[in-house]
């Protein structure tokens, strides 16, 4: 658990982070979003004390960070950055095993852990273990970076635009894998990005920052439904906002039971998003879809009218709340 209250950071006259309070519950994925220079990286780096905060409290698991031994604090926090920061003179295996070795694990334990992580991140041991970072593609290097961050099994993971330098296809793939990993490992993650789609896809909790301040925070859905000002709205994609919201909703949650009428021709799995459903309707020129389960058996029906209406209802109920 990470708790920031009234945290500020001044560099001389400039204020990089201004009175920020934030609570990241254990096992939650928190994304900090904002344009460059808004203080999101500074905030991240204050958590592992690469930058010392000027005022306020940063508390990890009930203890203020300045009361931890600096080195021990950093060794229990995983850290992955855009440039990977891999040591160019070490092999992949040695890079990944860094923190366990710093923690004086036995060499057998380190080896086993490295093997486990490389397997987890889809890097075959015999192909990659002895390669050097400059022999890897951008995506592979970033996987190694994430593996190194996870090596000592830290509860907390800090990630500073880890996928920012990758091509769109690789980036999307790694995002999917990170989401899968997080579903499996339940780390407490603080993730900095300027890519709103990435944040919407991964985060449980979204923090929008501007000029060192938090403009709005909440669940991705809440922000999409109710952006506080035009800045947040434009960041969330303006007119595209409806589709982004639809992308976060599963078909299963909006389907009705199979009616008396003939089932629709087009079929969509229940785990797909409403956005994909809408796209399918546009493609197939229909306003109804048959929802199927993993065995391709019909379990319900999705109609355009209902989707549109419920989106409205969501909004109304949210306002009333």
């Amino acid at each position, binding site marked *: 658990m990470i708790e920031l209250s009234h945290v500020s950071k001044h560099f001389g006259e400039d204020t990089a982070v201004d009175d920020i309070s934030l609570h990241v519950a254990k096992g939650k994925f928190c994304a900090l979003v904002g344009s460059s220079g808004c203080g999101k990286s500074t905030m991240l780096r204050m958590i*592992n004390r*690469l930058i010392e905060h000027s005022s306020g409290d940063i508390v990890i698991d009930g203890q203020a960070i300045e009361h931890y031994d600096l*080195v*021990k*604090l*950093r*060794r229990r*926090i995983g*850290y992955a*950055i855009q*440039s*990977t*920061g*891999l*040591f*160019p*003179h070490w092999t992949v295996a040695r890079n990944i095993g*860094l*923190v366990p070795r*710093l923690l004086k694990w036995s060499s057998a334990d380190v080896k086993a852990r490295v093997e486990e992580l490389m397997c987890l991140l889809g890097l075959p041991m015999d192909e990659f273990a002895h390669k*050097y*970072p*400059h*022999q890897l593609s951008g995506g592979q290097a970033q996987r190694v970076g994430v593996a*190194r961050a996870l090596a000592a099994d830290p509860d907390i993971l800090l990630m500073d635009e880890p996928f920012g330098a990758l091509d769109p296809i690789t980036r999307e793939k790694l995002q999917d894998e990170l989401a899968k990993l997080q579903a499996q490992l339940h780390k407490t993650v603080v993730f900095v990005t300027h890519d709103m789609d990435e944040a919407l896809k991964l985060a449980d909790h979204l923090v929008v920052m501007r000029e060192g301040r938090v403009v709005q925070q909440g669940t991705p859905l809440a922000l999409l439904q109710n952006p506080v000002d035009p800045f947040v709205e434009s960041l969330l994609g303006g007119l595209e906002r409806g589709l982004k919201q639809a992308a976060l909703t599963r078909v299963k949650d909006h389907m009705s039971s199979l009616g008396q009428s003939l089932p629709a021709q087009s079929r969509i799995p229940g785990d797909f998003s409403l956005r994909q459903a809408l796209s399918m309707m546009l493609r197939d020129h229909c306003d109804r879809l048959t929802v199927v389960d993993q065995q391709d058996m019909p379990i319900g029906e999705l109609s355009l009218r209902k989707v549109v209406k419920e989106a409205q209802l969501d909004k109304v109920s949210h306002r009333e709340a």
Partner: protein
Amino acid sequence: MSLIDAFSSPNRQYGHINAVLICLSVGMLSAAWLLGVVSVAPNRIVAGTSYGLVTAIGWPGALLVSLLFVAVGGLAIKPSRLHYCAQLCIVTLTLLLMPFGLMVAGHWLIDPTLPQARLGIGAGYWVALFLLLLCLVELRLRLELSRLWTTLLLSSVGAAWLVCAALWLDNLALVQEFQARDKQFYRAMLQHVVLVSIAVSVSVVVGLILAMLMRRYQRLQRVAFALLNFLQTIPSLALFGLLLAPLAWLAANVPFLAQLGVSGIGTTPALIALIAYSLLPMVRNTYIALDEVDSNTLEAAKAMGMRPRQRFWQVRFPLALPILLEGVRITAVQAIGLTAVAALIGAGGLGTFIFQGLGQAAMDMVLLGALPILVLALIVDAGLGALADALRPGGHE
């Protein structure tokens, strides 16, 4: 055909005509025909008579040499990998044949009844040798020969020359100079190597410590660089002279130092001056090497929870090592040259022969000092360069 194939087509890689090798070939031909290739002197002091190519090795020899040089140029008109390989063979063969040319010339031109008569190497010979080595450099680049191959090639040529010199070239002036003082030569060589080794190792250690202190205390950096730059501008002879008085005074007044061997002339001032000159390239390279390590890598090391000492010895230092070794290389090569001057204040070394030879107007004796210095510098340069390559992070790029 992919883009990469298109770029590596023969024409792209080798071009239409290699002007460099053709110019070198023309240069070698003119040097061999227009300048004297050998000279003959009845004794050590008298200036020799210069002889041209035909007189020295006869028409068949002259034609053979010309043919070899023309072949190097001719093959360069339409370059290909095969042609470059052939040129490499020709250049190597010529280098191997050159001492035999001297043998033939010696046999024909030296009167056996004159025991003091000697054969000197003429300007044409030197120029051709130099241009041949340039050919080798060009061919090495074109054929992308590794450092190892070039070293092997050059050392086998060098070995062949040494064998010829030892066995058959008795009447060559250079060999005679050597034979007259071989013990002295080996001692001077040893002194030279010892002086350079001490100066370089001290400046490596001091340089590393100084560079690390300069990284910590910014103010020291400005002062130290200013001082070292100033030292570098003092001419080496002047520095040796300047050290004479204070060291002589110290030796006279502090008996302990005198016991250690400190005196106004000799090894001590030579070492002090050599170290003073070596410090600037060493400190500058060490400082830059340590400073230029990627800040992202270092920050990652910090964020992983490495302690400052671990960050330095496990990350910063190994990543700086190749550039640092480059500094050692420059320092060592510079020190090998400077040590020659140290002979003037009685520190010994190969410079002794240079200054004695200059004093006696015996150019071959100067060569006896200068050539080994050159070879020593080349060996150290190649060795440390190879070491820096081997220590490059993550093997070879």
